[in-house]
């Protein structure tokens, strides 16, 4: 009797261990891709800087000196870091909401957070002119976007306290989005052509012109928020079974609901404030990570999505920046154009349900 029992115990250990090994391997690959994308971003551009010089310029004695130093320190490094951080934030935010709503086509923008930001930016860019503002400082735009995002978040939180089921929350988020885009359209109709162009470009997102001051904000907040959401893994996993099951195994649903809304709003609001809405990352990267890891377990998937988000966003920004240089195409265009086929291919290959 003892022998088969031991064999069984060994077998189940193997099943769990093999899985863990696979996860470690995939996570390591993601990390490698993220580092590679960061290096490429710093190295490639109108001035090509070989990898061999990177180390010296960034960490060496001569750090920040010379033309290369200036290009890297003032332009490429902050931009590359911002792209990576924003990518992590969007991917993590998207994953949190996909889990929370148990819906695979949900992205980080469904709560209407970015719509709120967009309306405020539209007011600033399009309405500011009629109010007699001649030039608009980029920091003012970020502030406007942040205020918009926070405003919507308040509304969603208030609603979340009232509605019983989560789907209503999803629909309300969508409705807020429609209202916001209606207001934007209204403003566009009365705005000058030039302002409209600026506004449209903003809504497509861009990482250009990032400065260290802004990067520091992202670098302080985003890792912290991702870390916090990692500690929600347990209830997040429980939510995979649906809200009712989650309740019966002891998840405090109301509190969890608030936390999810707060964290995703903060993640998405921050990114949107500095870059505008970057399409697709938050929707697609969680799928890419989930399908590569072969699990929906948030304890693995959440770090995975955050790291992969950094890698993918970095590469997309590189493409946006260099493909048609000197013209820079909006980053949302590259993310969607190259990301969507990847998701489709992964789905077809694995015949997996999301």
């Amino acid at each position, binding site marked *: 009797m003892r022998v088969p029992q031991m064999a069984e115990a060994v077998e189940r250990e193997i099943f769990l261990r093999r899985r863990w090994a696979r996860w470690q391997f995939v996570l390591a690959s993601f990390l490698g891709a993220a580092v590679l994308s960061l290096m490429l971003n710093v190295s490639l551009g109108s001035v090509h800087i070989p990898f061999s010089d990177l180390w010296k310029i960034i960490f060496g004695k001569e750090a920040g000196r010379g033309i290369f130093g200036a290009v890297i320190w003032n332009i490429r490094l902050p931009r590359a870091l911002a792209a990576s951080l924003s990518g992590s934030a969007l991917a993590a935010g998207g994953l949190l909401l996909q889990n929370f709503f148990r819906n695979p086509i949900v992205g980080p923008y469904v709560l209407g957070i970015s719509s709120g930001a967009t309306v405020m930016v539209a007011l600033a860019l399009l309405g500011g002119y009629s109010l007699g503002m001649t030039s608009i400082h980029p920091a003012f735009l970020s502030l406007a976007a942040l205020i918009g995002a926070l405003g919507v978040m308040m509304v969603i939180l208030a609603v979340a306290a009232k509605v019983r089921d989560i789907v209503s929350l999803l629909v309300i988020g969508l409705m807020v989005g429609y209202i916001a885009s209606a207001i934007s359209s209204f403003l566009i109709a009365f705005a000058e052509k030039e302002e409209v162009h600026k506004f449209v470009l903003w809504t497509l997102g861009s990482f250009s012109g990032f400065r260290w001051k802004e990067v520091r904000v992202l670098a302080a907040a985003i890792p912290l928020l991702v870390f916090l959401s990692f500690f929600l893994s347990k209830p997040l996993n429980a939510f*995979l*079974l*649906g809200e009712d099951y989650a*309740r*019966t*195994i*002891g*998840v405090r649903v109301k509190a969890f609901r608030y936390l999810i809304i707060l964290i995703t709003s903060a993640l998405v609001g921050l990114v949107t404030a500095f870059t505008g809405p970057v399409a697709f990352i938050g929707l697609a990267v969680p799928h890419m990570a989930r399908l590569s890891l*072969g699990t*929906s377990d948030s304890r693995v998937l959440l770090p995975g999505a955050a790291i992969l988000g950094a890698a993918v966003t970095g590469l997309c920004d590189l493409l946006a920046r260099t493909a048609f240089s000197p013209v820079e195409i909006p980053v949302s265009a590259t993310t969607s154009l190259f990301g969507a086929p990847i998701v489709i291919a992964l789905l077809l290959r694995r015949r997996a349900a999301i």
Partner: protein
Amino acid sequence: MMVRTEELEVGYGRRSVVRDVNLELSRGQFIGLLGPNGCGKSTILKTLIRLLAPLRGAVFLDGRELERISRKELSRRVSAVLTEQPSPGLLTAFDVAAMGRYPYTGRLGRIEGEHIRKTWEALKMVGAADLAGRYFHELSDGEKQKVLLARALAQEPELVVLDEPTSHLDPRYRLEVMLILRRLVREKGLTIIASLHEIDLAMKACDTVVLIKGGRIIACGPPEEILKEETAAELYDFRRARFSSLLGGVELGEESGGSIFIVAGSGSGARLYRALTKHGFGISTGILPENDVDFHIAQALRIDIVAEKPYNGISEEACLRALQEVRRASQVVDAGFPVGEANCRNVELIREALRMGKVTYSLRKEEEGEGLWGPLAPRLVYCEGLSSLLRRLREVECLRREG
């Protein structure tokens, strides 16, 4: 007493679904909730696991009011299998079952050591250990149900609440799930409360059944006592179908006068009765002692029966009644009953039918017929099986209708 409800009223928001629920359910029992769709079975169950707040009254678990027990404690004592089947994305059956460890795991919900062992035990208990490594979404409905049951067990509860655990399962899994539940009650001393749709299953598996209809509990007690023909008919508004408490099953009867008379007994008639009623033939049968299995099935199917008191053989009087039925019938069927001293008059009955020139079918072998009816035997129409009999009956019926 494990679960007690006091003047409980359950429902959604302001809409009351069931009122005056006063139940006292004891430990270590399998309790079944029966009633038509929409009668409030699920609503009661959801209130018992605190997914819904009671509109009035209260639920007590071991004497403590449910609302006063913390979520955490409750989740360690009560687990549930709900109607909605979750679609948890890329989680394996093991992951899903391990979710039952939620109330016991640490902050990150790591499944290790003891949690792995207990999850595996739960999977084995329901015979789902071989499914562990497969993705939940790839499993069949029945397998999913077993995994969800394992999840509920991994929670190490005292009470498991199951909302329609057997709907959308095929008969094999339905039985398997019920057997597992039964075993859990017997071996583990668990208390199980489940809403069920099959009266026959409830009859056979439950220690206590609760009948719910029209927003009220209409009966509660051991199924043997309260699941009678009339209660079942009342519960589900059966008109055509009938529940037989002795057979523990539901039969789809049609009320009809007989134009086909079936001579049967000892179970030889059961399949015939069902097949012929299903195809809409009007039938009557005899001569059956009242303890014969054919008698009970025929009764559940609402077939006219020429019956006889048991253990006394067949009386002259019953024979006359049967002869009258044969005379009225357009066709006669010999179901191929085993012949013995007590029912030799049934053999006589067929002989009479043949003498009268009735078209008579037999499901016996020709040689056997010869032995029983001698020179009259060739007049019988021998059928190899049920389907050929049905075909012949239908042909004659058509001719009769036309001519």
